[in-house]
């Protein structure tokens, strides 16, 4: 993947600074100075800059020196954007106190969020064109499916660590690359005639997708936010099984390829297991060991559901389907 197209003053200044460091042909210090003082043109510009910096920790860019992942100037810029972003998330998704037992309370919290469902729209009404657009946008996460949560593993104590690995092992195909969930999506994309190379559609995605992806990276990359990362996982898994069935039915209705339907069919069954593991064994084990993490788990869960709702509303509005 190459660095995405800039969407404003900040992402442009960041790209210039990374290029200056990579090529050594322009004054890197001056480029960083401009990046630190650049005002984000809008949310899309700000979130693309943050997404680009996070991506250095996943697969990187063909045209950027991979050593920049830990460059102090880049980390300082990343930190300043992260602080603003985390503040916003905490304002938007302030969790209630959860009752006991924790597992039941977390399921109830998740079920109580009445978000807009793109899967229901795909199941009944979406056109092929709208569905293909949605699949292109889903590539940003599905091609790194489970990766942001993998950062959390070494930060946990024995009980929650073993529980998280039990789930992640299944996400990663139990050692069989053919069954890796992100690879199942690659097969679906190939069969549907869409690009399956990592990050291929990042220039096209609406800001809401970047925000969703950035929230997962923010939670995953900071040990301090381990509770939010696992709460996000729990909400994601607990809102996947039935929507995946609806997606599979919609894809079938539209005559889209069996490989893409198979990706969603796999998630009907896998996530019926994963939601129980995520809520009852992973998050409950974390909270048992670290009771102060209960509110963080709830915050992460509400963030997951709230950001998906924003994306869904955006898409339905664009499609005139509200």
């Amino acid at each position, binding site marked *: 993947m190459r660095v995405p197209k800039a969407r404003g003053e900040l992402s442009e200044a960041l790209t210039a600074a990374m290029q200056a460091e990579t090529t050594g042909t322009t004054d890197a210090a001056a480029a960083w100075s401009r990046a630190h003082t650049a005002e984000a043109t809008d949310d899309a510009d700000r979130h693309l800059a943050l997404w680009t910096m996070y991506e250095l920790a996943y697969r990187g860019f063909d045209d950027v020196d991979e050593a920049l992942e830990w460059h102090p100037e880049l980390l300082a810029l990343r930190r300043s954007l992260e602080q603003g972003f985390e503040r916003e998330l905490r304002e938007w998704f302030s969790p209630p106190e959860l009752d006991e037992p924790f597992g039941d309370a977390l399921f109830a919290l998740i079920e109580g969020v009445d978000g807009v469902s793109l899967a229901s729209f795909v199941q009944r009404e979406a056109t092929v064109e709208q569905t293909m657009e949605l699949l292109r946008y889903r590539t940003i996460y599905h091609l790194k499916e489970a990766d942001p949560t993998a950062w959390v593993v070494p930060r946990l104590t024995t009980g929650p660590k073993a529980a998280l690995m039990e789930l992640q092992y299944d996400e990663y195909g139990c050692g069989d690359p053919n069954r890796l969930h992100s690879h199942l999506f690659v097969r679906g994309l190939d069969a549907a005639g869409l690009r399956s190379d990592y990050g291929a559609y990042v220039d096209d995605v609406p800001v809401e997708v970047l925000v969703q992806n950035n929230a997962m990276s923010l939670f995953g990359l900071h040990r301090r936010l381990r509770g939010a990362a696992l709460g996000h996982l729990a909400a994601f898994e607990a809102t996947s099984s039935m929507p995946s*069935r609806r997606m599979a039915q919609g894809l079938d209705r539209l005559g889209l390829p069996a490989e893409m339907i198979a990706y969603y069919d796999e998630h009907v069954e896998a996530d019926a297991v994963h939601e129980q593991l995520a809520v009852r064994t992973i998050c409950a084990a974390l909270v048992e060991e670290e009771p102060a993490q209960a509110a963080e788990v709830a915050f992460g869960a509400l963030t997951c559901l709230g950001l998906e709702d924003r994306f869904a509303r955006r898409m339905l509005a664009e499609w005139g389907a509200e």
Partner: protein
Amino acid sequence: MTAERFDHPDVVICPGGPLLLRGEHLVADADGRMHRTTRPVSAVCRCGKSADQPWCDGTHKVLPDKQKP
């Protein structure tokens, strides 16, 4: 320091939800058809309403409380 012993059951009944099976099993569905588990943990339907028998597909969550297992 002594190492803690953790509970790690082979079969877990989830309140209001499926039965989790750890490891490899051959499961006979209500019609006697055999289904081999394919993942480290499998969720077996307990509400009877899953469209993916014998596996759970999350349908129990939309049932009224008294119909939940």
